[in-house]
């Protein structure tokens, strides 16, 4: 006899958060209806769903604009982050000289420097991409560098006994060993790329054909279309969750045979 569905880990993993979400939405709708809260202050979930259906075309166009910036920024952050990590592990001197500047990028508030970047770069889309890259690159640099350095010293000794080249050491030992750290960085970075894109859009206030979801939120706020504002917010949140889920899936696929983080524990 097959086990009850409730004992299926995969099912519970999806069903539990969905259940909590549904309960929250039902309560939200009940409170809004019972207290007769006007839609321009707090719309209920059904009103937001209505806005999603009614404005789906403009919302999807805006989503695509934001997604393009997010994906471009994320891809560049991965390339730049991995390249920087490979550079840092070449010598402690290089790492000590450059790592503080990587931290500087991380701790500088993006809203403070976004206006400058938008002035310096004529193309608005690229300006937004640069802002999002600045947000997203640090976790990849930090995690991948840590991973490339966290090599089993005995394995490293063995490689050195066979007088392997630095290239062999990198390809056969450091890169495979750093994958769990790298994927950890990707999970954080994917969300930050989206946040960076949205924050930069807010600062740029780009309208017209280049209007992303952030501009949609601003515009809806000015027009007191709070349901539409929530609908745009919902799309941003869903995008973030989907990006995170994709990173988790990729990580599980890559590490499922050997790393504790991707191996399901059998009780």
């Amino acid at each position, binding site marked *: 006899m097959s086990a009850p569905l409730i004992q299926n880990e995969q099912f519970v993993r999806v069903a539990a958060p969905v259940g909590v979400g549904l309960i929250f939405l039902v309560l939200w709708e009940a409170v809004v209806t019972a207290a007769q809260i006007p839609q321009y202050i707090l719309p209920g979930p059904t009103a937001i769903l209505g806005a999603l259906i009614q404005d789906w075309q403009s919302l999807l166009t805006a989503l695509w604009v934001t997604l393009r910036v997010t994906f471009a920024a994320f891809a560049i952050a991965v390339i730049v982050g991995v390249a920087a990590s490979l550079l840092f592990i070449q010598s402690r001197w290089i790492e000590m000289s450059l790592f503080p500047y990587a931290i500087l990028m991380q701790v500088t508030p993006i809203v403070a420097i976004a206006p400058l970047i938008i002035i310096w770069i004529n193309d608005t889309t690229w300006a937004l991409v640069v802002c999002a890259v600045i947000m997203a690159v640090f976790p990849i640099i930090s995690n991948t560098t840590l991973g490339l350095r966290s090599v089993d010293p005995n394995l490293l*000794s063995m490689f050195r006994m066979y007088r392997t080249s630095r290239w062999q050491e990198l390809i056969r030992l450091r890169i495979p060993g750093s994958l769990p750290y790298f994927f950890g960085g990707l999970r954080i970075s994917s969300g930050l790329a989206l946040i960076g894109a949205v924050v930069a859009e807010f600062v740029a206030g780009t309208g017209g054909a280049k209007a992303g979801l952030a501009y949609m939120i601003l515009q809806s706020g000015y027009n007191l279309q709070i349901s539409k504002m929530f609908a745009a917010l919902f799309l941003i949140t869903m995008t973030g969750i989907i990006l995170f889920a994709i990173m988790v899936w990729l990580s599980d696929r890559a590490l499922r045979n050997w790393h504790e983080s991707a191996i399901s524990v059998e009780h």
Partner: protein
Amino acid sequence: MSLSSAFPRAVSPPGVATIMQRVDDPIEPEKPGGPRPIIQVSDVHKVYANGTVALQGAELDIRQGEFVSLLGPSGCGKSTLLRIMAGLGDVTTGQVRWWEQNYDVVGDKGRKLAFVFQNATLMPWARVRKNVSLPLDLEHESGPQANARIDEALQMVGLKGFDNAFPRELSGGMQMRASIARAMVTEPNLLLMDEPFGALDEMTRNKLNDDVLKLWQQNGWTVVFVTHSVYEAVYLSSRVVVMAARPGRIVDDIRIEQPYPRSPDFRVSTEFAGYCRQVSESLERASTMGQEKQP
């Protein structure tokens, strides 16, 4: 050339003598005409950057075909000495020679040494076969001959059929077997083992001890084996080198004059008990000497 046919059968524990500082007699003269020295450690001192004296005046010769155990308490420098023998650590002063030559010949073909670490030290992301073939991959050896060597090594350690398993799918004992197979594929002349079975249960440990002895005899290796266990050292070795801590130094060299192959019956014999008592007393003396030197 196959692993088993590559080397002549191991010579019996040779009647070699070493230039070594003893507790009771200062210098034992070397007998002429013994097997050639594989490693000669001469007056080696090792001082770490923080001032810890890991080794003080270590003198030790390891000769062809010997099975030598380095025995001593934690911190006596036995692993440090083994790593120096492997060329993995520098000496502060003194000299180490391999095959009567200097350091550069360690990697020469046909005179290879292999190292088995305290943990299995396998690459967790690679399957057993890939782990075992690593030394050959690093030396760009491939093709049917390399494959045959990997197959034979896996067969000899009893891991045939586990080629495609990942290390996490193996027990601790099987992981150590994979580690030994990895050392074997290089067809080493000298095998250095750093407490390889320390983390295993006694039954697995005894089984692996027998396996290592069998492989040592079949392949004509010279083995240097670091251990904490008096029983393990006596069971396996032709010589037990006793070390003391603070500072790390060699204090005794006890020859175990028992023929090979050694069966589990040896473990319950009066000779075994006698050797264990002798080695334990030597360890006891060594630790007392260490305490006397404490402020």
